[in-house]
């Protein structure tokens, strides 16, 4: 009869032996495991910018960009412990964009838009492989994006490791891209012929389950761009001349994120709160706060969100320049101006056993800050429908 072995040793041994059993732990406790089956999702989105108001435009009211975006995401498990994902994106763009800003009769900025309607197409493919083990996920991905005047090739490596209890996750990612720009030439306008830029980035993240309704993630990222970082299509008014948009040849960016997820069981509501601090060597500093609420009603889910964004301008941004700058950098791109934006979003999702459909709406409005706000600032609306399903 058994006498020698102690019960506590047996408990340890049997608990350890039971740990890896697949059906024993819920998916949630298995961290990011290999997906169980094939899944696919498709999303069709319509992005439309508000028109450039006549009061701020040199050529009267002008329609800005409309973009149709189609996204397809496919994922399938492979080789026992791996998964392959393929993402395809196709964008059809049409419209006009801000070209340059000149001082008006009273010194107010007047926006001139690109003359002809631009029609463009962008296609992107992303292929990634992830390997899953009990305590980690390692992924590698490649992306390629092409437009008639732009090409980008990117690579990304990421790794997540999980604590034994799957309550903590540490994420690392590094990646980079090589881009080339061959601007469409136009008669009478001098543009660069071919330029390139490279990007390298790294990020570290940490997330932890604090209790059964609270998850918090923090992350920091660093990114550096080198090469041609200017906008080849934009011009800047400098002391009476229109010069090409000219930005430094390197840009370093750093960002810090905190993301909080809280569930309120008595209301069946999940609350999101995301904060981001961003700074770069162009002199841009921004703060972003995003709040969201998701309410479950049976197999339906309704969501509401608000995003507030506030940014300082780049050192070399102005609507126009009365005199030359020492460093030779100029931009009147609205993206680099001082502004704030507020966006509201709403969504509805219906779950079926095998998948879900989604409908989302977002309204984005930006407002210039400072003495003379950039007149090119944009508002947009985004409507999207999505369908997803999975086969086990």
């Amino acid at each position, binding site marked *: 009869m058994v006498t020698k072995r102690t019960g506590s040793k047996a408990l340890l041994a049997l608990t350890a032996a039971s740990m890896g059993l697949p059906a024993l732990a819920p998916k949630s406790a298995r961290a990011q495991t290999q997906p169980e089956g094939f899944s696919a999702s498709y999303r069709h989105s319509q992005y439309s910018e508000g028109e450039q108001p006549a009061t701020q435009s040199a050529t009267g009211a002008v329609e800005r960009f409309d973009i149709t975006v189609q996204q397809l995401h496919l994922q399938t498990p492979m080789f026992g412990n791996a998964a392959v994902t393929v993402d395809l994106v196709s964008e059809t763009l049409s419209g006009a964009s801000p070209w340059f800003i000149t001082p008006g009769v009273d010194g107010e900025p007047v926006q001139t838009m690109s003359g002809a309607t631009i029609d463009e197409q962008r296609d992107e493919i992303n292929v990634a492989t992830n390997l899953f083990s009990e305590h980690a996920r390692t992924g590698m991905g490649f992306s390629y994006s092409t437009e008639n005047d732009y090409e*980008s090739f990117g690579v990304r490596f990421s790794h997540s490791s999980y604590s034994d209890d799957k309550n903590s996750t540490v994420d690392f990612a590094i990646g980079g891209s090589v881009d080339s720009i061959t601007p469409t030439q136009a008669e009478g306008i001098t543009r660069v012929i071919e330029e390139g830029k490279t990007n390298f980035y790294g990020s570290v993240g940490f997330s932890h389950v604090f209790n059964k309704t609270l998850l918090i993630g923090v992350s920091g990222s660093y990114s550096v761009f080198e090469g041609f970082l200017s906008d080849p299509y934009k011009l800047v008014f400098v002391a009476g001349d229109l010069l090409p948009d000219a930005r430094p040849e390197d840009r370093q960016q750093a960002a810090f994120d905190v993301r909080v997820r809280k569930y309120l069981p008595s209301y069946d509501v999940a609350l999101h709160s995301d904060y981001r601090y961003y700074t770069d060597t162009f002199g841009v500093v921004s703060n972003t706060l995003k709040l969201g609420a998701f309410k479950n009603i049976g197999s339906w889910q309704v969501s509401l969100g608000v995003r507030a964004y506030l940014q300082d301008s780049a050192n070399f941004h102005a609507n126009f320049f009365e005199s030359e700058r020492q460093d030779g950098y100029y931009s009147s791109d609205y993206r680099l101006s001082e502004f704030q934006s507020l966006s509201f979003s709403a969504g509805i999702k219906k779950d079926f056993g095998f998948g879900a459909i989604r409908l989302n709406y977002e309204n984005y409005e930006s407002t210039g800050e400072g003495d003379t706000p950039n007149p090119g600032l944009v508002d947009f609306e985004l409507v999207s429908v999505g369908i997803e399903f999975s086969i086990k």
Partner: protein
Amino acid sequence: MISRLRLCLIASLCVLFGTGCATVEPWEKGYLAREEMTLTPDPLAATLSDHIFFSKEASSSGSSASGSGCGCN
């Protein structure tokens, strides 16, 4: 090294958010398993948003592969 880093981070987050740090057992993770309790509940929407904000604002997302493309419109 990582586990030490982990402990430091957990401790500092606990202080920051004033929450208890009791270990959550596997069977208590039902709420956390919900899609809307993940950091990125709807990846396709998030990718698109990132791309739009990247092309309309100066702060690019910095850590996502969605930056490809010019966004120069």
